[in-house]
């Protein structure tokens, strides 16, 4: 059986002549948090809707728990908890009454499910406040409670921190991390906020204009993340030659008469500086630089839009 809890192949959604999602193939591993990162309108929500069978793909396949979603909805969907777009509940009912409706439909008879879910998101059980009177943050919390109430194996959360205050964001982040670490749940989370994804996700998919540009683990992305050394010396060409011939360092680039960049991270800066000084070169600066993830994502997506 496949290791992937979610696997899509060539998933495409076309509205008119415009591709909202184009040939998307994502792979979400069991027990991991997968962050789908993209700017607004990149196709994250459409992708998630297709994963839940809410939107029919124009082409391509969705496999969840190793089985095609189409035709297996009755077996697959009860194992998923989801939050898609804005929280949707009945305004004339309280939070508890709203959850009771869905608990009833899911066959969860004991009130402990509702109580437990509300506790997780810090909302009171049997509160008198109607959903229509909830703040945006409370609505979002209730939507998260609904997603986790039936203890699903897979969570699909579309921008779950929308509308939450900083404390709420930290709480939800901690709770999502704990769900994955303590109970082994698989979580697919989307966001346009890079810091959130980088704090939470184990694996990251970058989507832009409906196309998946990158799919890697956070560690791999961080490793790729443009770390490099820069030296300012009296003779950059000679210094580059020394690094290559004496220390076997590759990927050395002479930027100007006095500056060179080294992208080979095996370099020991101390040894390099000693080598330069022994060869009679003066060294006025030696620095390790690192691009942030944000720089990297901007470079990959070709511009702005990720906060």
């Amino acid at each position, binding site marked *: 059986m496949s290791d992937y809890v979610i696997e899509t192949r060539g998933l495409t959604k076309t509205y008119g002549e415009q591709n909202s999602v184009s040939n998307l193939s994502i792979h979400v591993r069991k027990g991991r948090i997968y962050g789908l990162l993209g700017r607004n309108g990149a196709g994250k929500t459409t992708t998630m809707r297709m994963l839940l069978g809410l939107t029919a793909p124009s082409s391509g396949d969705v496999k969840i728990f190793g089985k095609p979603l189409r035709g297996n909805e009755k077996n697959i969907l009860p194992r998923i908890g989801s939050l898609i777009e804005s929280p949707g509940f009945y305004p004339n*009912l309280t939070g508890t009454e709203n959850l009771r409706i869905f608990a009833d*439909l899911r066959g969860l008879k004991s009130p402990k499910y509702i109580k437990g879910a509300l506790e997780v998101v810090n909302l009171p059980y049997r509160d008198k406040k109607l959903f229509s009177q909830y703040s945006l943050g409370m609505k979002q919390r209730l939507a998260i409670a609904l997603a986790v109430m039936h203890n699903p194996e897979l969570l699909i959360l579309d921008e779950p921190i929308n509308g939450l205050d900083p404390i709420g964001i930290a709480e939800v982040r901690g709770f999502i991390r704990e769900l994955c670490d303590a109970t082994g749940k698989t979580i697919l989370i989307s966001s346009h906020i890079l810091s959130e994804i980088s704090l939470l996700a184990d694996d990251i998919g970058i989507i832009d204009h409906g196309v998946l540009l990158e799919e890697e683990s956070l560690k791999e992305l961080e490793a790729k993340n443009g770390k490099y050394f820069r030296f300012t010396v009296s003779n950059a060409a000679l210094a580059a030659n020394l690094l290559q011939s004496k220390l076997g360092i590759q990927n050395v680039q002479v930027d100007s008469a006095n500056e060179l960049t080294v992208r080979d991270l095996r370099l020991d800066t101390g040894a390099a500086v000693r080598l330069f000084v022994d060869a009679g070169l003066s060294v006025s600066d030696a620095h390790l630089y690192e691009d942030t993830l944000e720089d990297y994502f901007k470079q990959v997506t070709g511009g702005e839009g990720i906060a």
Partner: protein
Amino acid sequence: MLKLLRCEFAKLKRKPLFFAAAAISALIPLGCALFLPEMQEFSSGAEAVDRLMSTLFQLSAYLLLMPAVVVLASNLLFEEQDNDTLKNLMTVPVSKPALALAKMTLLFLFSIAFMAVGGLVNLAIVLASGLEPVGFWKLFFVGIGQGILMWTGALPCVLLVVLLNRSYIISVIITFFYTVINYIFGINDYFIMQPFGFNPGTLLPGSLAFRWFYQYFDTSNPTAQMTELMEQISPYFVTTSQIFLVIVLESVAFLTLIALVYKHQSC
């Protein structure tokens, strides 16, 4: 299905429109009893029952129940879209046709309750007048049957509302015209005097209901006008089995169409 129906009832909590619609079932019987002099002086209990129940059948059912069913249907069928809850239901998963049918079942029960409440208010008025409610229970159950018939009769209108997808104003306009047309057809000789078969007199709820319930009124002491009317229309009366055959066929056809149209609307 039972779960869905239970949830539909749960969703009605604090919904004033639904309870206002239920409350109007008592309005016409009470209004007639309080304000119309001919509804205050009866020669016998049987006459009182006949007159009050006739008001219930011809005014409450036609003019209030049918529009109420359509307006409530549009409210129920579009509440998921309005509140963005359809996505939560679909991921349970709940099938959209089953959801639509649960809502229609709720309206079916509402229609029965509407006529039952109206009938019981009439019973209370007869008893309060110190008369014996002779023949009440027979007409009470005819009233329940008419409630079911009005529910079936409202289904084509509900289908139009679903097809027009959330246009409440158009729904209300359609309901108004449909109600008026049915009321006119229900008292028009051309539609009443048609044999049982594939014709407007059988297929439209207004005329069909009249051809059914009218035979159950007390005709032991008829007036000249009543005798003439009975002679004219009695050949066209339909039996209870015939009327329920029409109800079953029409409701199966329209419920299937409503479920199909609702299924194909996006969530």
